C-alpha cells in the first residue's frame, strides 16, 4: 500500500501525517487524530453522521479520501466553538431539544453551519431540504428545524450588531 504524506489544518491546528492511499478522511479524523465527535452511520454516504467542513463547505468525510484533503482546512464538531462555549447552532440544539441520542448531532450541526452560511434566513422548507442529506432516527426533525431557526436568528442578530 502506497504511503503519502499529507498536511492539513484541523480546527486551526496544522497536522502532517503519513497515510495509506485508501484511508478515508473520516477514519483519519477519528482514528489518527482521535477526534471522535465525527461519526460513522452508514456505508453509502446517506446518513451524514460524518459531515465536516472542508474549506468551509460541508462534506461527508466517509466518502472522501484522506489524501484528497491534503492542503485543506478542516473543521469538525470539536472546533466550531471555543472550549466551554456554544456555537449558536449548539445552543439552538440544546434549547430546542434538537437531539436525543446525540449520534447524528455533530453531522447535523456541521451541515447546518454550511446551510446558514449560504442561506442566513432559511424557510422551514429550505431547512428541511437543506438537512435532507443527514438522517436522524430519534427526533422526528421538528426540533432540529426549530434549533436551526433559533441559530439563524441569533447569528443574524450578531451580524447586525457587528
Amino acid at each position: 500500500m502506497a504511503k503519502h504524506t499529507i498536511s492539513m489544518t484541523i480546527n486551526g491546528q496544522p497536522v502532517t501525517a503519513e497515510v495509506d492511499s485508501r484511508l478515508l478522511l473520516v477514519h483519519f479524523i477519528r482514528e489518527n487524530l482521535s477526534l471522535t465527535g465525527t461519526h460513522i452511520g452508514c456505508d453509502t454516504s446517506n446518513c451524514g453522521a460524518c459531515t465536516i467542513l472542508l474549506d468551509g463547505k460541508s462534506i461527508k468525510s466517509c466518502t472522501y479520501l484522506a489524501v484528497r484533503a491534503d492542503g485543506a482546512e478542516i473543521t469538525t464538531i470539536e472546533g466550531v466553538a471555543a472550549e466551554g462555549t456554544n456555537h449558536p447552532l449548539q445552543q439552538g440544539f440544546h434549547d430546542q431539544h434538537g437531539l436525543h441520542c446525540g449520534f447524528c448531532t455533530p453531522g447535523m450541526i456541521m451541515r447546518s453551519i454550511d446551510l446558514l452560511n449560504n442561506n442566513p434566513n432559511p424557510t422551514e422548507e429550505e431547512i428541511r431540504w437543506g438537512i435532507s442529506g443527514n438522517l436522524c432516527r430519534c427526533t422526528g426533525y421538528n426540533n432540529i428545524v426549530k434549533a436551526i431557526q433559533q441559530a439563524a436568528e441569533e447569528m443574524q442578530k450578531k451580524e447586525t450588531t457587528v
Partner: protein
Amino acid sequence: MFKCKTSPEVGGMGHSVKRKEDARFLHGKGKYTDDVKLPGMLHMVMVRSPYAYARIKNINKEKALAIDGVLAVITGEDLAQYNLHWMPTLLSDTQMVLPTDTVMHQSQEVCAVIATDRYIAADGAEAVEVDYEPMDAIVDPYKALDKDAPLLRPDKEGQKDNHIYHWERGDKAKTEEVIAKADVVVKERIHLPRIHVASIETCGVVASYDKDTEKMLIYLTSQAPHAIRTVLALVAGHVGLSEEKIRIISPDIGGGFGGKVPVYPGYVVAIAATFLIGKPVKWIEDRSENLVNGFARDYHMDCELAATKDGKIQAFKVSTLADHGYTDSSANPSKYPTGMFSICTGSYDYQHAFAELDAVYTNKAPGGVAYRCSFRVTEAVHAIERMVDKLAAEIGKDPAQLRLENFIKKDQFPYSSPLGWSYDSGDYEATLKKAMDMLGYEKYKKEQAEKRAQGKLMGIGISTFTEVVGAGPSKDFDILGIAMFDSAEIRVHPTGKALARFGTKSQGQGHETTYAQILAEELGIPYSDIEIEEGDTDTAPYGLGTYASRSTPTAGAAAAIAARKLRDKGKKIAAYLLEVSEEDIDWEVGKYFVKGAPEKSKTIQEVVFAAYTNIPPGMEPGFEATHYYDPPNLTFPNGAYICVVEIDEETGAIDVKRFVAIDDCGNIINPMIVEGQVHGGLTQGIAPAMYEGIQYDDEGNVLNGTFMDYLVPTAVESPHWETGHTITPSPHHPLGAKGVAESPTVGAPPAIANAIIDALSPLGIKHLDIPITPSKVWDAIQAHKK
C-alpha cells in the same frame, strides 16, 4: 392538567428543564462504543454468506492468514471446540454464533477475521475462501408449512416441520359463533412487513480480557447490560466466564429502539476472540450488515371484525402467521412469545375475542426484535385500527363517530379486556375529541367532500390506540427467567448533592435529566445537583434495561420509592434536630417543618448533612437508599391520532398535509422530552407506513439492504408534527406516569394507512398493506380504473 409542585430551579415533575446530558453530545464528546480505543486493540470483520440457504463445504483461511496483520480467522469449528458455536435466544430457541455446516440466511456470519487494523481485517475477510453448496431457500412463510418443505432445523430434537409454536388467547367457539350471527363482518389479511430500527449508530462491541485478573471488560451497544451479563455467564460459564468477572459497560448509545436488546453473534465472537487471544477486540457493524440482521414485525394477520348493522362492535378474531426467520430470537418475555399481541382488542368495549398465532421458520435473518416496540403492540394496534376503519367504510359511518360509540368509557376503568388485560386508566373520548378539535375535523370533512366532488383524492385517517407498557409484574414477566423489575440506588452526599444509579440504560431518552427530576420532585434537591449513572454493571444496581417504554414505569417508580424511603429517614432526623416527635413533623418540597410552626424547619440539605455529622442516637448513619420496583400492573398509555393526506392520482404521490397526535401518557415528568419522544416516534411511524420494508426475492436475497434503498425518512419526508396531551394518571404508578416513547410508533401507522385508503376509497380501494408507497398507490389506482 398537571400542576408543578416544585420551582423551576428545583425542576421536579412537569418542568421542561433542558437536558443535562446535552453538552457532551453537542461538543463531540459523547463516548459511543466505536469511540473506545484500548491499547493493543485488534479489529474484527465478519465474512458473511451470499446465499440464503447453503451447506458450507469448506472454509479456506490460508490466503487471509497470509496477509500481514491478519492474526486469526475464527470459524464455527473453532468455537465448537469450546461449545460456543451455538447460543440460546431470548425465547429459548438456539442461534448459531458461527456455523459449522450450514448457513440459514443471506448475510449470516460465516467466520470472523481478526487483524491489527480494520482495513486489514476487511482485506482478510475478502481473502477467506468459502465453498458453498446452495440449496433452495424457503422465503414465503406460508410455504414453510408445505408438506414437502425441507426441514430447516433438523438440529432441533423432535422438530418434524418448520412450525415453531402455536399460541392462542380467548374463547374461539364463542367468538366464531358471534361472528357467524353478526349483521356485519369485515375481513382482511393484513401484513406488517419486516422493518429494521436502523439506529444511526450500528451495533458493536469492544471486548477486553485480562488473563491476570480474569476480568472480562465489555463495552457494548446494549440496552440491557445486566441481563446480557447474566446471559453471558450462563452461556460461557463452562469456559470460565463467571458473572462477577464480567463487566459490561454500555457507554453512550446512538439510538436503540429495541435493536440493541439482543445478543448478536458478533458480540460473542469478539468476546471469544479476546478470551483466546488475550488482546482487546473491536467489532463494529457496517450499516449494510446492520440492516439485514435482526428485524421487527413480519406478521401476516387474518382479521375478522363483527358488528351490529349500526356499528356496535361485537367480536374480533385474528389468526396470525409469524415469520421468524431461521430461529425465534424474539425479544419477548418468556411466557409471552407473542409479546402483548393480545392487546389487539383495542380501545373498544366488547365481549368476545380470539387471537391465535403460528410461528414458522424461514431462510431469513432471525429477529422479532424491535422497532420502537418489540412486544407486538404495533401489530395488534394496526390490525384493530385498520379493521375499525374498514367497518366504518362498510356501514357508511364516520370513523370518528364509530369509535366514539364503541370506546371503553372513562368510568369503566380499570377495564378487563376480553383477552385478559386490566387497562388501568384512560379517557378515550376526551382524547379523540381533543384531537378532532385541534385538527378541525369537521372543516376537513367538508373540504374532503368538496375535493371529492372535484374528483380529487383526499383522505382523513384516525387511529385511537391503547398501548401496554412497563413490564412488568414479575410474576408474569421475565426474560430467560429473570424477573422484569427495575431498580434505583440513591446516594445523597453530605453536602446535599446526589448520585443515583439505575438498572436501565438511556439511548437518547434523556434519563440523566428525567430521573434527576423525579428525585427533585420527591426530595426537593435541585435536579441540577443530581448526577445520574446507568449502564455499568459493576456500579449500577441490577435491572432489566430500557426498552418497551419501561424505564419510567419501572425504574422511574423505583426512584420515587427509594426517595420516599430517604424522606422517611429524613423525617426522623428532622424531628431530632428540631427536638419534636416524628409525628409533629410535616414535609413540603425541600424541607421538613414542625406542624403548626412552619418557621421551625430544616431543609433537606441540613437534614442530609446531619445524617453524616449529627446522627440521632441509634440511627444508621448515611443517606442512601435502594429500591427494586416490581410493578403491580402494566400501564396503558393511549392516544388519538388524525392524519390528513392528499394523493396525486397521476403519480400516486402522497402528501401528508396534517398530522395531529394527542397522547395520554399519564403524568409527565418533562413535557419537552415527552414531546420530543412523540415527534421521534411519529417519524418512526410514518417510516413503516410509507417508506420502509425489507424486501426479499424468491431466492432469499435482500433487495434493499443499504440506506440507498432502505428509505429512512429525512426531514423532507417527515411532516411537521402537531402534538398535545390529555392526562389520566396511572392509578398504580407512584408518580401517575405511564411511559410514552413507543406510543407514536404504535399509533401512527394505522392513522396514515387509514388516511391513504380513505383518500382512495372513491375508486373502490378498500385496503393496502404498508408501506404504502407511491408506486403501490399508482398500481392500485390503475387496477381499479379498469
